[in-house]
């Protein structure tokens, strides 16, 4: 190679257009999040086994719990469950699916970090928020499908909401809102932990006790008092109780609870989690390469 004799003039290459974006507007940020979200969803669509396994697991819980534990538990359920453990279980499983599924947010982000995709995104003139917004947005859509499929299987097995369709729908949306909030928690965890193997543990270790020490599977009434004190007040129980209130009627709530109050608390938990963890996740994302 010869020396640079007669260096070409500096400046834009002949084919270069003016920069396409002067500054990134909020509208650009929404567009970018949609582009990233679409990309993440295409992965789910192109690799249907991901969606299949995500759905098989709650369906397995649904069947096992209904047929293994259902008979023993039915007597302990409030009359609002209409004598069917399945009716009691499906709203709880919506939250279980949300909790377990949220780990996918962490895994997806870590995979993108590993493969250098996040570096590519960070070198583009795109909104900084889009990678996280697109990820949590796509996970929300995925959760909507997985929870929907799980409810569908539940309906085939005999699940029936005892109130009205609008109330059932409100419960479904509340579950999705909670799933979205948990996605932000897991996004933060993933960006702090950063290796796929460690993320698996970091995600599932806290999720297991949270799901079991709650009203997701069983009423908390028979738990020892120290555990019950925790279980009754943790967000999974609050949101699960709200779902049951909405889908099965006020009678499904533990004695002394009012549905409107529980729904309000659920909303506050969701808002609180998002307000705390979305900024934490964004901060972790900003720091990820430095």
């Amino acid at each position: 190679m010869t020396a640079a004799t007669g260096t070409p003039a500096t400046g834009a290459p002949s084919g270069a257009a003016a920069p396409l974006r002067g500054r990134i507007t909020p509208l650009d940020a929404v567009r970018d999040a949609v582009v990233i979200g679409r990309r993440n969803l295409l992965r789910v669509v192109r690799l249907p086994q991901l969606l299949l396994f995500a759905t098989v697991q709650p369906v397995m819980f649904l069947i096992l719990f209904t047929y293994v534990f259902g008979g023993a538990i039915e007597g302990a359920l409030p009359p609002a469950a209409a004598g069917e453990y399945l009716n009691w279980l499906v709203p709880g499983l919506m939250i279980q699916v949300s909790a377990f599924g949220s780990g996918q947010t962490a895994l997806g982000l870590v995979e993108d970090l590993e493969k250098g995709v996040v570096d590519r995104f960070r070198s583009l003139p795109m909104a900084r928020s889009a990678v996280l917004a697109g990820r949590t947005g796509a996970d929300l859509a995925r959760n909507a499908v997985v929870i929907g499929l799980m409810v569908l299987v539940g309906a085939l097995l005999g699940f029936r909401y005892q109130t009205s369709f609008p109330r059932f729908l409100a419960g479904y949306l509340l579950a999705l809102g909670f799933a979205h909030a948990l996605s932000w928690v897991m996004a933060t965890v993933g960006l702090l932990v950063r290796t796929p193997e460690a993320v698996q543990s970091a995600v599932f270790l806290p999720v297991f006790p949270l799901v079991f020490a709650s009203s997701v599977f069983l009423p908390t009434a028979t738990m020892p008092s120290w555990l019950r004190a925790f279980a009754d007040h943790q967000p999974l129980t609050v949101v699960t109780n709200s779902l049951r209130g909405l889908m099965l009627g006020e009678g499904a709530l533990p004695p002394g609870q009012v549905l409107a109050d529980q729904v309000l608390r659920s909303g506050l938990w969701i808002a609180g989690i998002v307000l705390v963890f979305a900024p934490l996740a964004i901060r972790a994302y900003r720091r990820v390469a430095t």
Partner: protein
Amino acid sequence: MTDPIVRVRDVVHDFGRTRALDGVSLDVPGGIVYGLLGPNGAGKTTLIRVLSTLLRPAAGHVEVAGVDVIADPTAARMRIGLAGQFAAVDAYLTGRENVEMVGRLYGLRGAAARARAAEVLDRFGLGDAADRRVATYSGGMRRRLDLAASLVGRPQVMFLDEPTTGIDPRSRMDVWELVEDLVRGGTTVLLTTQYLEEADRLADRIAVIDVGRIVSEGTADELKARVASTVLEVHVPEADRARAAELLTGVAGEAPATDTAGTALRVPARDGGATLVAAVRALSDAGITPDDVALHRPTLDDAFLALTGDPATHAPTPTGRTRRGRRGRRATEEVAP
């Protein structure tokens, strides 16, 4: 020379207690291929990450295409393209979807994004494979797709971090041609490499970087000339060897070295061809007919080894931490061919 398109001044960056960049300054003129050459852990990747807005240095000033990268990274991102060490493409998307997505993230919409993607894919010889999923692509194709994606935004400066690491020789030559083609189109390319052959073939100017510092800078020829002179090597029959050595000492001003087999006599050829002519004339006048006479120009390998010292002393420096969590992969990828 016009204003440099990339201007780096006194950039310092630490990872924990390891100094990855230790006061790097360099100027890259527009419209050329500029090579950053250095051993593992020298700071090449860290410098690329600083230039491409991924890493904010602890100190220093960086300007790309007239934009202060640290003060206004978004404006810089509009003007740069980056292809990292690993092809950052999505295996489950098609080639076209990958490139279109990047186009949209540069702000292209709908038909414009589609048209630009088709144009870039054709240019990189991926037109026929565009609608296949990247999972079916070979390593070389993935690398080309990665380069295509980083070009969608018509960058003024392209940063390529080890663009040919881990691909087969044929794909490597394809990438070289693409880089040369890019530069003909007016783009400035700044690439890192640890392959001397690549730097020699592609780069108009080279900066040799070692333990976070630029140890030498110039054209490949300048670097070679700076560290070693051309060597004249003469083979003569055994009987004439002592006399030939005397004559060569007279021509070169120092006694010739012999090689391990003892058949070749080597002296520095300070005047290149003129030294050769003088040596041949002296031998001929003395009635000695050499078996072989050759001028050896120093290679970039000679320059690299002289400039960076014993590579074994810093191969495993902790600067591998530029990419946390993939130390192992990085180490295996950076083994020279």
